[in-house]
């Protein structure tokens, strides 16, 4: 069942999207109607105006999901499941042709030769000004300047179209011819081309580690794939073409010899070590530029214009062959399209870091599968499940081992026949250490439970200790003055600032993480209880006092009910902040937890997993908040009416 759903996730997404669009339209229609109906009886600013309005909630959810579907390419995949594969084939051609394009204005505004000449000229200009006069003799300095002048001549010759050798010229012509042939091929009708068996057997888009299947699965894709294969040969050819004008040959061998002469002169014994280093350094930088010129990678601009034209022609043919795909791409695949890297095709733009909703759900289902053997859970621990908790573990945690030590008697020793007879003292030690079997109770387990447990325990401790302290601070001069500096000093410190200390004090177990969360919750609870208590109207307290209420009765029946709204709001805030601190707390020493999963997922850039953890935390936070709203509505109906 799960397999089937997972396999057909594109179709499911297609259905969901239609439902979402319908939901959006209906909710807007209903919402507008309702608003128009009520408009006349409502006054602006009346809190009653915010009641109800399910249709706007539905509208908001639909909008959010539709935006998510759109920018994650979920819409594109739902209705054009083959598009990514075709885009991948186009990207293959792009990848293959890119070295040629990079040398031409069509790809990088300038001819590569223009950039090279400009760059080399700049460097030569700089070299001329930097001839070290103290280590080279005046003759040598002239010689160096001449060499640099000759290098300029080399560039001038290479840039002169009339000096282009017949061989280079014919090679370039052949290249243009081949590119044109390729363009014609792209314009041909692809319907007769059939994808291979192997290609059709690939996992579908998004179903395996390799996101987009690489082999072409449509006839249009096959066409692009074949053309890309042929273009690869053309690119190799292009990379091999060199421009060596005849006039350059003489200069090159001449300059080579003169540089060699300078080097030989350096090796003679006339110079000290520092001078040799300086001479070599300078000669090296002159030679470096010379070697580049010797490579023959500078071409006259006019010679490459035809290649540029041919590539433009190929681009036009590509657009023609893409046909409707171009429209689909610009409408349904926001971002930079598909890019082919050396090993696979990947989605670029928002889809790179925003996984599709259906993929996130599938990832969540895998994660929440309690069957570890079948690949469920994360790092061998389920997301949310139960297990048998041996009772002795709990006992072992609470009972100190020293109980056995102070019990009278001796621990057992091995007897002469090699047997060991445990005494009561031994049994007691085993009990205290949690090694004696005492039965087991069912207990919740998993990453989610561990995180929940940490938050809930911290919150409970925060409320139990924070609320009384806050109330007393609200009514007692001693409590207020004694604790105020303490609380106010530690409250503004960001929780993560405690992290290095926590690790040293508590070690790597749960108590450190709980303590970190507790500190957050505690401060919030103290502040809110105090505000609530001190905000009680004096007239109410006086009234109850004159009616004969004792101190504890005033506290119990007047101050506490008055502080309740503030306290419960404090709980709401504390829950939110605790969730927020959880990820930081679980970085400390990660073994389990939602924050731990997110931290590990980040190191491998597993965006699906990252989004699953974000959504789990968001949804859990929302659930807690809904529960708290319900509690507030039930327990303190007087809120906002005092």
């Amino acid at each position: 069942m799960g397999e089937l759903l997972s396999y057909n996730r594109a179709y499911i997404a297609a259905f969901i999207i239609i439902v979402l669009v319908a939901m959006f339209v209906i909710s807007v229609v209903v919402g507008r109607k309702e608003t128009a109906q009520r408009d006349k009886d409502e006054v602006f600013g009346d809190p009653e105006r915010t009641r109800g309005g399910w249709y706007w909630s539905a509208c908001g959810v639909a909008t959010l999901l539709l935006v998510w579907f759109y920018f994650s390419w979920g819409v594109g995949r739902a209705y054009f499941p083959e598009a990514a594969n075709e885009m991948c084939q186009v990207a293959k051609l792009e990848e293959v042709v890119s070295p040629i394009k990079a040398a031409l204005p069509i790809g990088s505004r300038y001819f590569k030769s223009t950039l090279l000449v400009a760059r080399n000229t700049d460097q030569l200009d700089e070299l001329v000004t930097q001839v070290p006069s103290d280590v080279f003799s005046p003759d040598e300095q002239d010689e160096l300047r001449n060499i640099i002048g000759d290098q300029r001549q080399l560039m001038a010759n290479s840039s002169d179209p009339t000096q282009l050798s017949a061989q280079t010229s014919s090679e370039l012509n052949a290249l243009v011819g081949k590119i044109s042939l390729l363009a014609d091929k792209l314009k041909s009708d692809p319907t007769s081309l059939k994808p291979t068996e192997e290609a059709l057997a690939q996992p579908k888009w998004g179903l395996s580690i390799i996101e987009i299947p690489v082999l072409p699965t449509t006839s249009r894709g096959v066409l692009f794939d074949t053309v890309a294969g042929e273009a690869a040969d053309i690119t190799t050819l292009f990379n091999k073409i060199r421009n060596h004008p005849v006039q350059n040959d003489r200069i090159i061998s001449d300059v080579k010899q003169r540089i060699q002469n300078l080097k030989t002169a350096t090796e003679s014994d006339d110079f000290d070590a520092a001078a040799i280093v300086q001479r070599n350094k300078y000669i090296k930088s002159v030679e470096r530029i010379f070697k580049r010129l010797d490579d023959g990678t500078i071409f006259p601009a006019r010679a490459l214009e035809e290649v540029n034209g041919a590539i433009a022609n190929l681009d036009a043919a590509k657009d023609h062959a893409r046909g409707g795909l171009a429209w689909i791409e610009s409408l349904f695949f926001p971002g930079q399209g598909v890019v082919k890297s050396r090993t696979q095709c990947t989605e670029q733009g928002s889809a790179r870091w925003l996984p599709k909703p259906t993929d996130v759900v599938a990832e969540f289902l895998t994660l929440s599968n309690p069957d570890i053997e079948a690949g469920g859970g994360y790092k061998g621990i389920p997301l949310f499940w139960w297990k048998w908790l041996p009772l002795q573990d709990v006992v072992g945690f609470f009972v100190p081992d020293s109980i056995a030590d102070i019990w009278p008697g001796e621990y057992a020793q091995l007897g002469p026949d090699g047997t060991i007879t445990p005494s009561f003292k031994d049994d007691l030690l085993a009990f205290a250490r949690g090694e004696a079997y005492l039965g087991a109770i069912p207990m919740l387990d998993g990453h989610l439970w561990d995180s929940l447990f940490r938050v809930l325990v911290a919150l409970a401790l925060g409320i139990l200790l924070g609320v009384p302290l806050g109330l007393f601070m609200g009514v007692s001069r001693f409590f207020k003055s004694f604790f105020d500096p303490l609380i106010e000093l530690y409250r503004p410190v960001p929780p993560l600032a405690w992290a290095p200390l926590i690790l040293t004090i508590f070690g790597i177990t749960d108590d450190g993480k709980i303590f970190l969360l507790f500190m957050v919750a505690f401060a919030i609870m103290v502040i809110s209880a105090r505000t609530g208590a001190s905000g009680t109207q004096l007239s109410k307290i006086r009234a109850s006092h004159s009616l004969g209420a004792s101190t504890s009765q005033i506290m119990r029946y007047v101050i506490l009910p008055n502080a309740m709204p503030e306290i419960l709001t404090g709980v709401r805030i504390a829950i939110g902040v605790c969730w927020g601190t959880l990820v930081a707390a679980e970085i400390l020493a990660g073994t389990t937890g939602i924050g731990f999963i997110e931290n590990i997922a980040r190191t491998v850039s597993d965006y699906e997993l990252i989004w699953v953890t974000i959504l789990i935390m968001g949804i859990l936070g929302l659930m807690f908040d809904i529960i708290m709203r319900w509690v507030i509505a039930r327990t303190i109906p007087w809120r906002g009416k005092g």
Partner: protein
Amino acid sequence: MKSVLKSTILAAGVAAVVAAAPLAQAAEEVNAAFFLEWATPNQIAKVDKAYDAAMGVDVKWADFSTGVAMTEAMLSGDIDISYSQGLAPFVTAIQQGAPLKMIGIAVVYEANDCFVKNGSGIDSSNASELEGKTVAVPLNTMADYAFRRYMSHLDVDTSTLKIVDQAPADGAKSLADGAVDMACIFGGASAKAAGEVGTPIMSSQEKVDAGIGSFDVISVTEKFATEHPELVRAFMEVTEEANLAWKATDEQLAKVSKDAGMDLETTKDQMASFIFPSAAEQKENYLGKDGIAAQAAASLGLVFSGDSDGSSIAKTIDGSFLE
């Protein structure tokens, strides 16, 4: 008359601007990434602007603290070349389909150590006693890789260990506190701290005998490699020259330690354990078809995501930029 004057001024202004910016495109810049506290000879070339001179462009260096961050910066287009990226982040990036290339080996160094708490009586001869104990490992890093290699070499079943994900500094602290029995560490300062209270589970010699080593790579975005192969080549050339010129003299060490942000002693110790393979050696031993790089990448891929297809990672190794 006035309008003539105006247009003349305008024309002169435009001409001045155009003349002042001859081929603004030619003066492009290259962004390179490096690690702080990771001393390499090419930092001399970096400080002396030898890269800028040889490549004819401005080279801007940005320091990073993790290889994953380097990958992210390269994907977003802020960085063109990463010098000394760890093999682990490179491999995980490739597995996610990132368009990157390995073009050289920056540093070969001893595998990161796993420190066993002093007094626990565990060493390489009785490592199986680790089973059931707690180990701090920074997951998905080169230290994680080294840890798994050690354990498989010493026949320890990792599924019986309680593995805690901790950053090196935290792991060293937990080891000192006795919260963990072994901590796998990378980075000079943390390793020093862990060495105070622990002993490496395998000695340097044992690591060499077992063939466990690690290395950092030079990686570059495919886009940059395609569009500016001559710049990449010049970069590698300067790096090679800097490596060849490295004699570990005091003057050189001072320069490197200043740039690496470490004191002289630490720099000296760190660099003493580093090997900077020459271009010829890289091509022959590391970057070939079944070279060390391809094999290590394949086994790393297996460790981190169970993707046994090492051949796909091997495709991103390109030694052609080494002259």
